[in-house]
């Protein structure tokens, strides 16, 4: 996981973290970022838009950023547990993961924690 050097605080309540160019995340895939003390998996949907959830699968610690996604969910590559990208709910019976608001500002990824 490459540490994120260009993190800066933009807002006070939900802190916005700037993670650098959106191009770091290829279309339809995910990449993991260290944001503060959190590991966050950021996904770039094929249909447009970004999603972000906690990077670690609650089942056995699988890397969600490496999972296959569609417009709705990410599937953990280790044991195929699926999580909704919008709210982190698990559709296969595991505990949920945290979901984060993520946006693109001026070509840069911004995650709100």
């Amino acid at each position, binding site marked *: 996981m490459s540490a994120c050097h260009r993190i800066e605080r933009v807002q006070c309540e939900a802190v916005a973290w700037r993670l650098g160019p959106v191009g770091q995340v290829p279309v*339809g895939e995910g990449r993991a970022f260290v944001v503060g003390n959190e590991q966050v998996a950021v996904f770039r949907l094929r249909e447009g838009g970004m999603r972000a959830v906690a990077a670690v699968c609650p089942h056995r*610690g699988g890397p969600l950023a490496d*999972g296959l*996604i569609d417009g709705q969910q990410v*599937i953990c590559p280790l044991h195929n547990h699926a999580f909704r990208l919008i709210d982190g709910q698990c559709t296969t019976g595991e505990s949920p993961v945290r979901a984060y608001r993520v946006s693109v500002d001026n070509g840069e990824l911004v995650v709100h924690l």
Partner: protein
Amino acid sequence: MQELVVVGNGMAGARAVEEILARGGAEQFTITMFGDEPHGNYNRILLSELLAGDENAPLDDIFLNPWEWYEDNGITLHAGVRVVRIDRFARRVYADNGSIVQYDKLVLATGSRSYFPPMEGLWADDKTLTPGVFGFRTLHDAMAMIRYARGKHCAAVIGGGLLGLEAARGLQAHGLDVHVVHGAEGLMNQQLDAQAGRVLRRSLEGLGMVVHTGTRTTAIRRSADGAVTGVTFTDQTMLDVDMVVVTAGIRPNIGLAMVSGLETQRGVVVDDQLRSVDDDDIYAVGECVQHRGEVYGLVGPLWEQAVVLADHITGANPAAAYHGSRLATKLKVAGVDVAAMGLKEPERPDDEFVQFSEPSRGVYQTVIIREGVLVGATLLGDVSKVAALTHAFDRRVPLPEERIKLLFDIGVPAPEVGAAELAEEAQVCNCNGVSKGALIACVREGQRTVGGVMGATRAGKGCGSCKGLVADIVTAALGGDLEADPAEGYYVSCIPMDKPQLMAEIRARGLYSVSAVFAALAQDGAEHAASKMALASLLRMMWAEQYVDERDARFINDRVHANIQRDGTFSVVPQIQGGVTTPAQLRRIADVAERYDVPMVKITGGQRIDLLGVRKEDLPKVWADLDMPSGFAYGKSFRTVKTCVGREFCRFGLGDSTRLGIDIEQRYQGLESPAKMKLAVSGCPRNCAESYVKDVGIVAVEGGRWEIYIGGAAGATVRKGDLLATVERSEEAITLTGRFIQYYRENARWLERSYDFVPRIGLAELRSILVEDRDGIASRLDEAIQHSIDAYRDPWQEHRRPASEGQFRPALRLTEMPPR
């Protein structure tokens, strides 16, 4: 809002309405139901139980839909009212209480009635049976029998079919001596062969019944006051009885349809949408229906019909079609377990017939197999195998070579224990730790398909070897309620097509990428994560170098060409063709292992070396330093060819197995396939390379020839491969291997290993296609695989230039992962 009128408030009518409501029918229809009987809908199957019980026992259990159900769903119910005529042109029904109701759609669910064969003295007048004579069809019949039986001593049941035996058992429970009089030689001859009938007879006689077979009743004798005193048989012998129950069959109620000008034969003739062939606005369902010449008297077909009817009438699925039902029933007849499906006796000279009979225990079992498929089974007395057999019957799954295993577990280990014998807490899916109880609970919570239960519990989603057992348990838990899982035959669940259809469509539309397939064929054009890998594999196989590779359609292993491990690191297995390596290769591997702190170096079962625990970011450097091609130990693809040393060194060796193994691996390396493929070449029948248990295994035999086995396995499933062919030259072995691989690639379901694929297609079929070239496709298959071979590129060359931004960027902070 349309007017929907349902004539018939029995199990078929009410079930059809339930199915319609489940599809949002309440928004489309104002529903009116007519029921001839003065009750709500009740479960006719429970009448036997009711008859065996007390007159004053509560009836709660027997009623399926209480009055509130009709009210809550806004249904107007006319109970105890009979519809006498349909005016199809004015679209009205006329009832015997004078009411007239308009309809837009009409459903006939008039059921059937008891059949009374002609007998002297049967009727008191035109409409009334002689006092003491009963049919056994309705709640009224059952209650009347219970009342009449009080203080009586002896009853005759005329008709030894299913219903008759139930009635006999019920009357016995009221203390009567019961004689069963049956015209045919064998009891229950609709379902059972003659020998089964005899075994059943013995069991029933053991219960105290007197059975007369091959005997017809010609007359009912009556006392002066008109009540039953006995019966007379064809041979003029007589029997003194106090009451008579006539269970000589049922006849569909088709009078209403007939007078209303609808085509009727034995039943109301309907098309595949359950509509009268004469009138698109009139549907029929249940026992009154005649579909493709069949009239059904069991509840299973009725459920299936109700689903199709509801799908079609509500427009939920305008393409819904009923294709008839395969009959499989499991009942307790007079306390004796009986299960019957399909044929009761072999019909053709080459039908296989396996028969087991143990009359003293009341056990009789048969299976009938035609062309390798189970087409009939009868189980009497011991029905422990019914789940597995029903499964085999419904799905036409492959059967064990030793047919008797269908009936008995001959020293087989736990995985083949029938679903019924398993304890609730027994673990069924050993990969994901799912118990039988959890599966049953899932069914109780409302899952209605095998796929649904597997999705919700993840049972069968690991190695897959328990799928059959999961299906058995779910099927049994659902009783007759199993819903066909339409997605089962689909190549991927989000596109309603099987593999050949899907391939044809992809070709016709020129779809070269996974996203293009979703856009053109998936529901709403939406992509579906769980389908991506299967589609990527299929498209690459079909289009080879023309395939438009979208990295996000790949599973992580295929994105980084290594196998992901539990801690998010990867395993790296370089190609070592045929398991033959060199000191220089070994030195390089050792250097790499040290340079990158590889935590474990392991010799694999496929005769290669596995570097485990490689960090994702190190992968390109590891490949560059190894300077060896990928061994594809991570893909759904051709993996390895294991070999023994063969003729060059071994004193028993008959063929050059290492050379052939290397040649095969070189040629077919890395080809994507529906599931992984592991091969082997052994230099003699001692089989040191384990060729008999490989997807393709080749064995050198005396005379310089090679045997080619396919469909073997020694993983979660153990299976010896089938001998596809014996060839003279190693070139032929290479060609035939490729031809089989290509046929498998084109025809196997996603993740279907060769050990399932080969028995599904059948060895004889594969031989005639691949070896004898019956269909003339051999050269096309050879060309197709050559095309894929030509398009092959070693993926580890991506170390020179990553295929995507951050391809090898770690996805987890590795230090946080606990060691095992």
